[in-house]
């Protein structure tokens, strides 16, 4: 036991003495969380638009006011002619142009029908779709209130309520995803690199020849990263809660259990990588390429799994972060407990055992 403690102590010294490691451990998680939280936001705020009002009557003015005071849009230009629309899109100044037809109020009164044309810059399709939805929503709302007395025959109305994230805050999605990414980065990448470093420096030989058991060597290498990952997980949850208002509706115990399970999985993956990689560079390459990309792309972190082609959907089942992110969202946003997340827990457990088993086998093979 004393042997192990000395070894763990040495591992901490390595970490605290290397400024690069410290940056990766404590700088990157915070930067990443801020980046994902603020920059890659899916919410619409102050989107620049232009308006071309051919009618300019009291109704169009009311609608315009309503749109511009919503907080979602900012008026960049008032256009006068149709041929101004194309250049303004090309210049990239605006994302959307709203066109009111001639005699808007008149048409509305006489025929009970008036047209608004919404033109959006679909070079970014998601944003375009969202801008349209927001605009449409505002116009619908206006008509509903303005003509509250009128009954339109056979109308189906849908009331929409966004459960668990009423305001559609993007951070609710990004905080669990960032957590999965950061923990993977620190646990799997850092352990595989630090073990590869011992091999590169030749110190691994010394350790193997010493009376230290192989399991102690691995444990000693891994334990510091388990602790540091836990600290990082705490930081992410804390910042997510305080800065972005991501709730923690489930029990902290379940949350902690889930995080520890995921870290253990990532650590065993790191050990597995280190049995294959003999240099830090190879370890970095494998963990960077083989772990980071799938974690970002195939886990449902950014892109919804349901929208993927079937082969990728099947592939995503083998991505541990997928199950972690899903369970994490359930616990944090829905307040679910083990009764709901047990399949995820079971899958993560199985994956951990698989990686550990494979590492032990590889390790033995290498020694032979």
């Amino acid at each position, binding site marked *: 036991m004393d042997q192990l403690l000395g070894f763990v102590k*040495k591992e901490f010294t390595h970490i605290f003495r290397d400024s690069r490691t410290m940056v990766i451990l404590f700088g990157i998680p915070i930067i990443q969380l801020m980046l994902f939280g603020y920059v890659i936001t899916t919410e619409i705020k102050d989107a620049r638009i232009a308006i071309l009002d051919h009618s300019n009557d009291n109704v169009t003015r009311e609608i315009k006011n309503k749109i511009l005071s919503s907080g979602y849009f900012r008026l960049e230009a008032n256009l006068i002619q149709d041929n101004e629309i194309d250049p303004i899109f090309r210049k990239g100044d605006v994302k959307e142009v709203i066109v009111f037809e001639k005699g808007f109020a008149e048409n509305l009164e006489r025929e009970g029908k008036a047209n608004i044309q919404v033109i959006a810059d679909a070079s970014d399709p998601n944003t375009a779709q969202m801008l349209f939805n927001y605009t449409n929503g505002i116009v619908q709302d206006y008509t509903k209130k303005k003509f509250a007395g009128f009954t339109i025959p056979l109308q189906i109305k849908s009331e929409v309520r966004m459960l668990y994230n009423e305001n559609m805050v993007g951070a609710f999605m990004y905080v669990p995803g960032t957590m999965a990414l950061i923990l993977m980065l620190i646990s799997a990448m850092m352990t595989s690199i630090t073990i590869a470093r011992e091999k590169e420096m030749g110190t691994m030989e010394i350790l193997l020849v010493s009376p230290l058991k192989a399991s102690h060597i691995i444990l000693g290498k891994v334990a510091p990263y388990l602790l540091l990952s836990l600290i990082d997980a705490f930081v992410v949850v804390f910042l997510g809660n305080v800065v972005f208002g991501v709730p923690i509706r489930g029990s902290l115990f379940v949350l902690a259990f889930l995080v520890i399970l995921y870290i253990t999985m990532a650590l065993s993956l790191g050990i597995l990588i280190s049995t294959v990689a003999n240099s830090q560079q190879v370890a970095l390459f494998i963990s960077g390429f083989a772990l980071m990309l799938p974690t970002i792309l195939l886990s449902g972190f950014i892109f919804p799994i349901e929208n993927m082609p079937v082969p990728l959907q099947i592939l995503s089942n083998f991505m541990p972060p997928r199950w972690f992110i899903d369970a994490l969202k359930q616990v944090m946003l829905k307040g679910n407990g083990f009764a709901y997340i047990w399949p995820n827990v079971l899958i993560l457990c199985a994956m951990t055992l698989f990686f550990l088993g494979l590492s032990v086998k590889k390790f033995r093979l290498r020694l032979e």
Partner: protein
Amino acid sequence: MDVITSDNKPIIQVKELVKKFGSFTAVDHISFEVNKGEIFGFLGANGAGKTTAIRMLCGLLEPTSGALKVAGFDGYHQREAIKRNIGYMSQKFSLYEDLTVYENFRLYAGIYGIPRKERIKKTDELLKKLNLEESRNKLVAGLPLGWKQKLAFSLALFHQPAVVFLDEPSGGVDPLTRRTFWDLIYEVAHQGITIFVTTHYMDEAEYCNRVAIMSEGKIVALDTPLALKEQYHADSMDGVFLKIARNKE
């Protein structure tokens, strides 16, 4: 150079030792004994089976067949005991470069379960002997190569092993430093610690009490450097090595 045989008790006993990897025989029925306090050189080209043999002697690999005893412990069932009673120094010197000299001592002492009090006393003694007192709290990374070599050697001896294995201990070190390093080796051997050394440098082979030369998994020559030179009519170990290689063809 005369053979130091202060005590003729063999500390390493190898008899008909074999290691097979699948159908490939890496070590093919080798037999030899190394006495207490002897400096035993182990030579051979890359792929001759040297590394595999050493790994068995260090308790890292289980032999396929044959008898193996190191420091009185069996190479099959007492590999953990062997590990506790040997020291090992690799060609990379294998120090933790981002730890200080003192911290390296502390770590090794910890791994071998040496009590704190003894550790502190011995560390002080050794640092004094190696003239490294001033570098005590310096990072190993900043030390000259020759110092690292001495330091690595001292670390391998810290737990007072019966045998110390030196795997190409002079890689990249200039001849003068190599010479002073060998003075250190002689000193240790005189204290009764057995030295088992592999090397590429033939001048180092001359310093050994006895030399075994491996080729294709077998020991093809084993004697004192003097006797080997006579037997092969060569005036240096270099010549011996060349003639053996030629005979093989």
